[in-house]
């Protein structure tokens, strides 16, 4: 009933706009990109005036023909127009060079005067996005706005990235809403059944489907007050993307092409001194490299037994059972080079636009062809966009746009996955050559098994299980392809009912099909010894429609108001079809389930709808005080209750009150205060506890109901019929200044937000009878400070120099988890990224060293730390203390240079690859040889005499030096699982990087014009060229757990890259 009441109220409110009207002279105000709404038109010397409507149109009573109209708009040079006899005026305003960015769009996509906006947002210029020359759009946003953090997952071609605004606002999805031309765009990054978050392949972020060339501007709205209009979709902030439209005038065309060369930017250091084996003895099947000293071998060919079984590699090389290892050859670098290469990306884009007074068109096409730094990894993307605008008559116009995207990519298996590339490569002993990874195995009686997998633990390929993949097998024999087809379109009808009332009917469709095929031929690792084919298809369709009425009136000559009332529906559905076929009937490379004896099919459907009604009113008093009030009502199919979100924003341009003269250093000052609420709808279908099939496994021993003819169990994740919206409240206060004739711009914002009723599948104590219960139980808060600056400190005729940048801090704290000690976001990892009350979101927890009450190690009798068996401890915080970016933008004549540094300080990383490799004995840190100067104990308590030269490291944990050798690194000081001291895997991963350097030259002028061209832009860009961090072996800007909430964990994660990009852009 209450729902209906609110509906009626809002509907009445909408209808109330039909009450006034009047006119005499009329006209329109525009800039080079189109109509300017909100421009001021006054009779010079008087008090009569008006502002332009949404189409930039105005009408005004003029007293006589001598009157002069003064047309102004912040950010533009004011223009005076004599009225004379004319009744219609078309005024064109030119931008004021000192304040170019001043027209922005608001969160619903309508143009606004920047200085009238009271919420916190950052504008990311399209220039800075296109100059970044990143093959993926999201990465090009890195470092561009305070409070916006972009975290990579790996440098795999097309890999997704995490976007986060002001920290994690909810455990359930705090990635921001992406709005393109007023229509929400799906930016999912789905893991799937076949490729889990802890191990599998890097998945893509769907925002990267957009052709960056189509983008006109990007604005990042950070606070809840700006997002409240979008209700439950805007919990993590809103990124508003405006795309290019055709413009009236001559046909414009541009053709651009870039070529990028990528290199791995950090390599794990591996030792080459010791061979495969354990306890100092060589063994060709050992998992570890704690074998003999390679230099001490006799050298020459290995002694082998040629009497029985053997392996014949594809190139004819023969491998026999080893009797004595003699060879001193090491293969660390050649192994590496067989896996990695210089990546190459080529990108071609074409843009055409034009039109006349009635209609315009825009067309773009792009093609990206990328080969990754890991051989066989690739990404191909084609996009086509067509857009037009058409004006039917003076009250109805329309604009439509449609994009088609097709991409395909082969990704390389990584992470916690024995069929992953880094796991197999980095655990591989220095003395094992990976080259001959495939061939025929002949057993003792000569039975051949073709296409056998030869790995370092199965150097004869004598079993169907290679244990760990040979990395060459991973890249050459396994494939993980994804093919995406996507259509994204929108259409707007703009009905101009009266000069002060517009209706916009807007609808959008976003649909994609993501078809992923994972193929593991027979003899692959990761339990695919008998072959595994998986096909996973996501069909995702989202429809949204908005009906918006926009009203604008002058209440008095100083007070004007704009009212937006709208309603929106949104329908998102996704179907996931999964086919798994295992146990191949023969050793086939056909990627089709027909080759397998056991097939499993699953289907998951997901659908959520919501309805919103919203009203926003903004009042402007004399261009000094702005007050924006908003109220949004929302209901979603997955929530039992509806919700109302209020928002209030106040902006006071107090510089206007200070009567500043032209010599004042202060040009502009504004105080912003805002309060807003947003939410998050529960995931759909969470009300019931259904039945499911199950696999029971303790440790590498899965038995499943499916394999026993099928069966069910009551789901261990309990549903909850009382689920409702999560609610986030945010307060913010900010100050904007412009100094020295707008040369220095400063903007600072403090915010505090709190998310309550957060939905959490709480890990229950097992004795509750369930594993988890979904409920509105948890709370967290974030507070932080953001600061942006841009200083044009040098400006000469042909030369200008800008220093710009941003700094942000965010402190999150989990305040309530309904009594549960921790919630794990990183299933399957021994070091968890978790929620713990009193700690930041995503804090790293795991096994720690036993400590005394004073915090020092509680050492064992030999002076070594002991494992604290009392459970997980907090080991580190993956969230930075602060992030920042600083850059220089220089323009000299037709040259421009941009240098951008980015930094993240105080973030910890669970550097598990390094730590695990200690246990395996392959890491360079454990390849050292030390000569003892005193008797030392090792972990087993043996005394190693002074003067001995042994493999290991000397360390003092507090009770005198001890020898860290194999005994230590394979028990507590390295390796996998929860029974090692994982605390020692966590390191400070602060980093500073040279994110971007770009130099471009624009060739224009008469010479070029003669050739029929407008201009030619040439550019060279370096991405990620410098990296300063204490983390060894990998760029800390990776994440084992992809784009999820878990972060700060690295476990055989594919590495990052640095690139040089050369580009050319021809404009016709």
């Amino acid at each position, binding site marked *: 009933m209450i729902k209906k009441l609110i509906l009626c109220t809002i509907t009445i409110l909408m209808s109330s706009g039909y009450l006034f009207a009047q006119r005499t002279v009329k006209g329109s105000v525009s800039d080079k990109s189109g109509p300017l709404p909100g421009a001021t038109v006054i009779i010079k010397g008087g008090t009569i005036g008006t502002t332009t409507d949404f189409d930039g149109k105005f009408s005004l009573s003029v007293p006589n023909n001598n009157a002069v109209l003064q047309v102004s708009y912040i950010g533009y040079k004011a223009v005076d127009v004599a009225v004379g006899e004319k009744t219609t005026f078309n005024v064109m305003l030119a931008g004021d060079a000192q304040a170019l960015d001043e027209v922005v769009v608001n969160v619903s996509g309508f143009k606004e005067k920047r200085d009238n906006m009271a919420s916190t947002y950052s504008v990311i210029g399209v220039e800075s996005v296109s100059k970044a020359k990143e093959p993926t759009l999201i990465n090009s946003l890195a470092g561009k706005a305070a409070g916006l953090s972009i975290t990579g997952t790996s440098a795999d071609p097309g890999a997704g990235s995490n976007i986060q605004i002001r920290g994690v606002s909810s455990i359930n999805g705090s990635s921001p809403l992406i709005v393109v031309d007023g229509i929400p765009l799906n930016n999912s990054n789905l893991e799937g059944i076949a490729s889990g978050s802890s191990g599998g392949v890097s998945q893509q972020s769907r925002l990267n489907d957009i052709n960056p060339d189509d983008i006109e501007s990007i604005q990042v709205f950070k606070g809840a007050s700006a997002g409240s209009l979008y209700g439950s979709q805007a919990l993590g902030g809103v990124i508003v993307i405006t795309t290019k439209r055709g413009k009236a005038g001559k046909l414009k065309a541009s053709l651009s092409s870039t070529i990028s060369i990528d290199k791995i930017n950090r390599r794990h250091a591996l030792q080459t001194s010791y061979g495969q084996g354990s306890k100092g003895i060589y063994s060709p099947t050992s998992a570890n490299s704690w074998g003999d000293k390679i230099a001490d071998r006799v050298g020459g060919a290995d002694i082998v037994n040629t009497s029985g079984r053997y392996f014949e590699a594809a190139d004819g090389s023969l491998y026999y059972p080893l009797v004595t290892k003699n060879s001193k050859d090491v293969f660390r670098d050649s192994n590496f080079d067989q896996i990695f290469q210089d990546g190459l990306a080529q990108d071609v884009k074409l843009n055409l636009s034009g039109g006349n007074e009635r209609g315009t068109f825009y067309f773009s096409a792009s093609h990206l062809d990328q080969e990754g730094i890991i051989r066989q990894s690739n990404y191909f993307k084609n996009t086509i966009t067509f857009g037009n605008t058409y004006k039917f008559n003076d009250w109805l116009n329309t604009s439509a746009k449609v994009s088609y995207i097709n991409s395909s990519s082969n990704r390389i298996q990584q992470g916690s996955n024995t069929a992953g590339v880094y796991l197999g490569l980095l655990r591989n002993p220095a003395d094992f050559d990976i080259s001959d990874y495939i061939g025929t195995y002949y057993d003792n009686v000569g039975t051949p098994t073709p296409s056998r997998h030869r790995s370092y633990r199965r150097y004869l390929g004598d079993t169907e*299980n290679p244990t760990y993949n040979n990395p060459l097998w991973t890249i050459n024999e396994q494939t993980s392809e994804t093919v995406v087809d996507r259509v994204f379109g929108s259409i707007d009808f703009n009905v101009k009912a009266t000069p002060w009332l517009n209706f916009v009917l807007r609808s959008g469709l976003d649909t994609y099909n993501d078809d992923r095929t994972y193929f593991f031929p027979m003899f692959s690792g990761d339990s695919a010894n008998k072959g595994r084919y998986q096909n996973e298809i996501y069909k995702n369709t989202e429809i949204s429609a908005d009906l918006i009425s926009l009203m604008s009136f002058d209440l008095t000559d100083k007070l004007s108001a704009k009212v937006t009332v709208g309603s929106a529906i949104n329908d998102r559905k996704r179907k996931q079809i999964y086919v798994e076929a295992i146990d191949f009937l023969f050793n086939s490379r056909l990627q089709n389930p027909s080759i397998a004896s056991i097939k499993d099919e699953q289907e998951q*459907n997901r659908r959520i709808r919501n*309805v919103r009604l919203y009203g926003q009113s903004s009042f402007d008093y004399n261009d000094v005080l702005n007050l924006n009030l908003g109220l949004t009502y929302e209901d979603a199919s997955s929530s039992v209750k509806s919700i109302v979100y209020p928002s209030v924003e106040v902006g006071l341009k107090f510089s206007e009150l200070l009567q500043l003269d032209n010599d004042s250093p202060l040009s502009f000052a504004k105080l912003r205060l805002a309060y807003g609420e947003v939410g998050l709808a529960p995931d759909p279908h969470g009300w019931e506890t259904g039945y499911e099939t199950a696999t029971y496994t303790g*440790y590498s021993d899965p038995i499943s109901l499916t394999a026993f003819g099928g069966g069910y169990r009551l789901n261990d994740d309990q549903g909850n019929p009382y689920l409702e919206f999560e609610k986030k409240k945010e307060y913010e206060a900010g100050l904007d200044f412009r100094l020295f004739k707008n040369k220095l711009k400063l903007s600072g914002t403090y915010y505090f937000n709190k998310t309550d009723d957060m939905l959490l599948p709480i890990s229950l104590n097992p004795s509750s009878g369930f594993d988890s219960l979904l409920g509105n139980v948890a709370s967290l808060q974030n507070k932080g400070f953001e600061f942006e600056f841009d200083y044009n400190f040098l400006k000469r005729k042909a030369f200008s120099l800008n220093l710009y940048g941003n700094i942000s801090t965010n402190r999150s704290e989990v305040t309530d988890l309904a009594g549960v000690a921790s919630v794990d976001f990183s299933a399957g990892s021994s070091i968890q990224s978790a929620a713990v009350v009193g700690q930041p979101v995503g804090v790293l927890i795991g096994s720690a060293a036993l400590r005394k009450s004073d915090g020092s190690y509680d050492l064992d009798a030999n002076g070594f730390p002991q494992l604290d*068996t009392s459970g997980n401890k907090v080991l580190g915080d993956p969230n930075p203390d602060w992030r920042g970016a600083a850059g220089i933008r220089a323009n000299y004549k037709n040259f421009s240079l941009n240098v951008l540094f980015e930094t993240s300080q105080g973030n910890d990383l669970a550097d598990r690859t390094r730590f695990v490799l200690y246990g395996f004995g392959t890491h360079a840190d454990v390849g050292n040889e030390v000569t003892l100067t005193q008797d030392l104990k090792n972990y087993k308590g043996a005394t190693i005499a002074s003067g001995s030269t042994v493999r290991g490291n000397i360390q003092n944990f507090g009770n005198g030096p001890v020898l860290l050798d194999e005994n230590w690194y394979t028990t507590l000081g390295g390796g996998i699982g929860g029974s090692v001291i994982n605390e020692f895997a966590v390191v400070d991963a602060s980093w500073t990087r040279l994110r971007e350097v770009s130099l471009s030259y624009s060739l224009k002028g008469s010479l070029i014009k003669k050739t029929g061209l407008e201009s030619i832009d040439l550019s060279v860009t370096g991405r990620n060229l410098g990296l300063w961090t204490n983390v060894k072996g990998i760029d800390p800007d990776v994440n084992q757990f992809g784009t999820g909430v878990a972060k700060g964990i690295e476990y055989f994660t594919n590495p990052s890259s640095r690139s040089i990009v050369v580009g050319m852009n021809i404009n016709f």
Partner: protein
Amino acid sequence: MKKYIKQIICSTLLLSLLGCDQYLDINEDPNVSTDVPAELLLKGMELADVQIQSGHLMRISQFWTGQMKGTVNLYGRINDYIISPEDSNDAWAFMYHGIMTQNDVIQKNSQDELVKGIANVIEAHGIGSMASMFGDVPYSKVGVETKAAFDGQLEVYKAAQDLLSTAITQLSSVSTTRRFTNDILLGGNPIAWIQVANSLKARYYMMTRQYPEAYQSALLGVKSKANSLRFAAGFAGYGTTRENSNLYNLILTGSRSGDLTSTGSFMQNLLDVTKTSSRNNSKTTESRRRDYLIVDQTGINSTRISAVNALTPLVSYEENLLILAEAGYRTVGFNEGLIRLNALRAYLATGTAFAGNPILALKYDAYVSTDFDAGGIENKDNVTANKALLREIVEEKYVSCFGTLVPFDDSRRIRSTDNDIALPIPINSGTAYPERFLIAQDEINGNEFAPSPIPGLFVKTPVNQ
């Protein structure tokens, strides 16, 4: 036209909004059934129970009782008693969700006494093992309160006995010819399940030192190999795929294949004719059984316990015979113990109790009482005949119950009651034997009733104190 458009827009808006309750009514889960017949939950309970009895923790118990060795990685460390509470998480989830939650549904919704009876035996099997491994555990409040209080270990054994009695009543109420094919362990044979229930009662009475009750229950216990509870008698029925394989086979062929082995274990040596410490004697040749019990990644073959389709014991005929032997000896006397032991040996001598390489010898001649006299073949160190007999019964059970938690149960019990004849199982690290497993990390995290600090690995459970 213009004004019509306004009206159209307004009415469309109004209509669409009024219909929004219907529009939003789409949250029913399209992916899962909510009306599954309760009987279909039994199989999942069985798999959960198999993992408790034969999975990760059982293998660890084998490292700690000299039956196997953990060599590298996690198992290498656990072998030396470095273990964390997270290693118990799965077992706890299997017990409380995998078994008890499902059984609650079965007892509530099913009309089938056969399925209800079997489900209750499985629950009792699980919770008894939990009490044995962890001491005090939640039980009586499970399913009643989310944060369940911990019951004393003895109370849990008592509750398990009561539940087994209930199960026997339920199973006795159905026709002996009824079968339930979705039971992958015993094909839903009520007679077999009644015997298994009685053997379990006997097992728990042994743990609580109620030897007369143990003897009485064992008399009604498992009477044949076919009626033994084993994983998974239903292999053949479902074909062989990886995920219905023998658990030893799974781990030996997976990514942890080299992390554990029986090679060089105390038990392998005990069975090894070439070793002076071996239990072979003029009436006993263990060569074939030794071969059968080899568990190693390089030694998987069709006649060993790690074969892909080898059945592994949960509650076996052998165990029941040896409970009769020990409880018989303790309550009736030496002769009863000897007769029962010889019954087991006669069974072993048939060669049907286990596989193993058929070329290798086996011999299990009947013992006579003089064999246990001072200087006899089973009493070289001149203890009393009674002690010598008990020692042989215990040692035989240690071998016969390979692959179950029973050796861990018995070794702790015998150290507490008859330490003088306890098997000389080596201590892998330090000076003490592990006496329990650690309470699951998930339970510590989520239940304020969990003891703080949790009892350490070397603290005896109440029954053994």
